[in-house]
């Protein structure tokens, strides 16, 4: 009797869990569905009832050009900033992972803290400095500043990967005659590839979506979020949904990458150790 009762309440609890998950996912994914759906709706106002399918908002987007220009800017600056941050982050993560030295703790904090400072503050600060050296208001400014906030992400992710590396294999390389640099490039670097790829992906996403800093420093070469922001001040129409859908399609591509690289890196640590 007691066992049956317990099983019954277990099932009830599981049911409640699934119901909660369903509601939660509804909340999390609702805006994305709305974005994609209403980019194909005829009416200017995204409401029910459904008025008909159209592609005119995509046409509108293509003919207008402002958002596409900004998308182009973003697609130039974000991959480059992510790449620069990943390279800098890899070397820093390697040194922090391998060496002990005086002031290491302070240095690790210094290298991680930029991500903890709100971008609003960083945006004002960057503008203050860059305008003194006439580097404000260009794509280069966005690149330079985004690298700062992306370095911590890169270091954190690559450190996760490096921490999983058996210290044996670097020593084995030395033992077989490799110099420190040879071991770094021929053993440690290949080992870190998943971490590096994950770091680049996440950095790219952060940069691509970053608004405040870019708003302060990008000037006449706005990135996509900045252009959307100024676009919204004048026209609220479904071409925003259209660009949103395009971005979401891009994101799905990214997500496949994430599924393949980032999640295994974060979660598989455990299952590996189980097998061992």
């Amino acid at each position: 009797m007691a066992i049956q009762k317990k099983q019954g309440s277990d099932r009830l609890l599981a049911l409640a869990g699934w119901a909660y998950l369903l509601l939660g996912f509804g909340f999390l994914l609702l805006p994305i569905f709305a974005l994609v759906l209403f980019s194909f709706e005829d009416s200017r106002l995204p409401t029910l009832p459904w008025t008909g399918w159209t592609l005119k908002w995509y046409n509108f987007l293509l003919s207008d050009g402002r958002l596409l220009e900004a998308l182009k800017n973003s697609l130039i600056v974000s991959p480059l900033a992510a790449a620069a941050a990943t390279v800098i982050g890899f070397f820093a993560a390697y040194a922090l992972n391998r060496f002990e030295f005086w002031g290491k703790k302070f240095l690790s904090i210094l290298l991680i803290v930029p991500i903890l400072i709100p971008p609003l503050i960083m945006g004002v600060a960057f503008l203050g400095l860059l305008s003194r050296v006439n580097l404000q208001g260009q794509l280069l400014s966005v690149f330079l500043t985004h690298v700062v906030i992306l370095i911590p992400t890169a270091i954190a992710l690559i450190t996760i990967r490096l921490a999983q590396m058996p210290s044996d294999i670097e020593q084995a390389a030395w033992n077989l005659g490799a110099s420190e640099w040879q071991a770094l490039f021929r053993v440690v670097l290949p080992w870190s590839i998943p971490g590096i790829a994950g770091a680049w992906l996440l950095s790219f996403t952060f940069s691509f979506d970053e608004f405040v800093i870019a708003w302060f420093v990008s000037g006449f070469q706005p990135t996509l979020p900045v252009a959307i922001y100024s676009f919204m001040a004048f026209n609220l129409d479904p071409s925003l949904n259209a660009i949103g859908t395009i971005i979401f399609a891009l994101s799905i591509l990214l997500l496949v990458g994430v599924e393949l690289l980032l999640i295994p890196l974060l979660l598989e640590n455990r299952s590996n150790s189980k097998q061992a």
Partner: protein
Amino acid sequence: MANSIPLSKPSSNLQTKTPNESSLLRWICLAPAVIYDSLLFLLPLIFLIWIGFWTVDNYRLVPGFSLSNYIDIFQQFFSKSRYAYAILQSLWVSSTATFLTVLFCYPFAMAIAFVVPVRLQRLAILLAIAPFWSSYILRLYAWQTLLNKEGLINSFLQTLHLINQPIEIVFTQIGTRIGLIHYLAPIMILILYLALQNVDRSLLSAAQNLGATRWQVFWRVLLPLTRPGIVYAAVFGMIISLGDVLSGIILGGGTGKSIFGSLPLFASMILNEYAASTNLPRTSALATILIVIMVLILFAGTKFSQSNQ
């Protein structure tokens, strides 16, 4: 015990001899990050605080040391621009939004960790963090179209005759919070899920074996064990929402209504003031004040978590 450590771990990095003991490798590896962050992180921050003491004359920055920005700001603390109220509004909205996000995410992460079959958990996490990979500003726009008076949600509820008048959500701080919760939730779910994953399942069944009810297992075992994850998630949520400008502007309409009245958030205010005036010294002074507030919160947060342990 201390003596036995080198014996049992002779391969520790401290003792290992490397191909070149005095090599410059570590400094060469660290140099790019250190130089970059010194020039483009520390320097701008120092500059920010310094510029707060500059003045503007005829649209030109005048370096110097003047307290006029701060005097002006503090004179307007309770009148005209009413910065104090904006700070209060910011603290109120961020703390409630953070609290609600934790409240939403903890059971969600729990459901993924305990109800969803293991092989599907990864997919569930991936779905949960999916919003994070789409544009934040466009998600806010989507929420705006969903929540406004003629929006999907209001028209849906009216069709069902659940309400007669459309509910006002957009351009209130409730809207701001919805935007913030939606922004924070994916990362918080991930943090809390990882925290829950680290809990040893055998502890839970052991507690149940000892006669604890589900509630007791939750309150006396699971919650205490995942407390660091919760604190971590809450501090993270607080910092992000205090510094966020977009939700307050797009969903809160700049000066959204809350129980304190129609007041802007401090962060949105800084952005809008700069957009209107391009007065960098004054904006820098305001940003410096925001830094002070955050440091105080972080300080209080660490004090709080220490005193509880």
